[in-house]
């Protein structure tokens, strides 16, 4: 691939929630802005735009990242999953349902980031990735609150719904959804 000059736009195909989208964007457009402003997938939120709050969390090839600190052009070969790809209002993802059941939010601004992050986090847990809380946790069917808090620390909630967020994730993890 040759240089794309600063005054040229970049033709680009992004695969989001299983659908390929063709875009023509400035190279400066972040993955977050591509999703929200160009593809109208506004479920992913912008809180800080600097990697500090987690509202923009999406899954890239199954791994959670902050979409605000990544350029759209860096994701041509990737499979991106946003909150819109996890469930719909008529068919909630079981983790979304758990958030509703436990009141895992107040304003809801951080929620899509919390949910995408928790999906990625539980995959990491199942893969046996360690954390600062346990520093050496292995695969397990259940995860405790201390582990959830540490592993979810990249998702801030301005309404401080933390106790219910932890409860929602705990319920979902204990249920069959987490074993899928």
């Amino acid at each position, binding site marked *: 691939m040759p*240089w794309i000059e600063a005054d040229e736009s970049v033709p680009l195909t992004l695969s989001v929630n299983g659908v390929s989208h063709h875009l023509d964007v400035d*190279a400066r457009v972040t993955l977050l802005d591509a999703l929200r402003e160009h593809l109208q997938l506004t479920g992913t939120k912008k809180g800080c735009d600097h*990697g500090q709050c987690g509202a923009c969390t999406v899954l890239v090839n199954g791994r959670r990242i902050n979409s605000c*600190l990544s350029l759209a052009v*860096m994701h041509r070969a990737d499979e991106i999953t946003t909150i819109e790809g996890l469930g719909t209002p008529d068919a909630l993802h079981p983790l979304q349902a758990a958030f509703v059941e436990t009141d895992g939010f107040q304003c809801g601004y951080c929620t899509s980031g919390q949910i995408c992050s928790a999906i990625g986090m539980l995959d990491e847990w199942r893969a046996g990735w360690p954390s600062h809380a346990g520093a050496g946790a292995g695969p397990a069917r259940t995860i405790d609150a201390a582990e959830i808090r540490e592993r979810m*620390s990249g998702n801030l909630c301005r309404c401080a719904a933390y106790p219910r967020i932890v409860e929602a994730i705990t319920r979902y993890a204990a249920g069959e959804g987490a074993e899928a």
Partner: protein
Amino acid sequence: MIAFDYIRPGDAAEALQAAAERPGARFIAGGTNLLDLMKLGIERPRHLVDIGGLDLRTVSETPDGGLRIGALVSNAELAAHPLVRDRYPVLSQAILAGASGQLRNKATTGGNLLQRTRCYYFYDPASPCNKREPGSGCAALGGFNRIMAILGTSAHCIASHPSDMAVAMRALDARVETRLPEGTTGDRKLDTLYRLPGTTPHIEHTLAPGELITAVLLPPPVPGRHHYRKVRDRASYAFALVSVAAVVAVEDGRITQAALAFGGIGTMPWRDRAAEELLVGATPGQDLFERCADAVLARAQGHGGNDFKIPLLRRTLVACLTDLTEDAR
């Protein structure tokens, strides 16, 4: 963010050629530090070489029994790698004590080493900062300097180095493997990757323009217990106020091996070999650990807001050494 030309080469040779072609070009790996700073106009590269497509994502054993870590291995993968957890646990612990799950998935080994300071004045284009704008002055010296360094500072800059990973790598005697535009390779100790601020705080490392980090090399593991202890303002997702990476072995009541490195206190990931030598051969105990802290802190200088780091580092080091040697005494 200013506009930039962009290229995503398929291999290292192409990346080196691209960077050499356009002077001032910068590599972008995870982007979690560079993009943050570009959005604020603090970093203003005109040419970006995206190295995300390069084949530098493997961790492998070296013939001498050490470890070769590709520059693009993510911080998360590295911390979870079985060989790292088993043989170099201090490295896994240090990485897991930093940033967040999302950031560690994106952040890379090379990018982590070269991340820039979190000094508030460096981050604020309205303030003077010799690192951001050489010759403009240092607002941290007379300003809020709670997070700044107490060692390795100069009259021109007191910004601390923020990496946790690099602190553990210094304790482990890591080396940095590079490739240069001319096609040659470089190999240097991590100790010599960083530069003290002196009169040129904007020059932070010894890499040549266009020099690409390809891997970090760890020597074979040394026997001993490992521990990374980090003190910060909240329990998770915060940079270190002070941190200690320690690998210590005790045999027959005497310390036989000690490697100590420090985060949060230095203008670069800090190591003090004189303090280590003091430990080797001696019987572990409070007195000895206090003398070790004296040695580390001999030249420490507070700037008002960060004076507390001097006693905090002392206590953290003594606690860490006590933990590591307790049942061996």
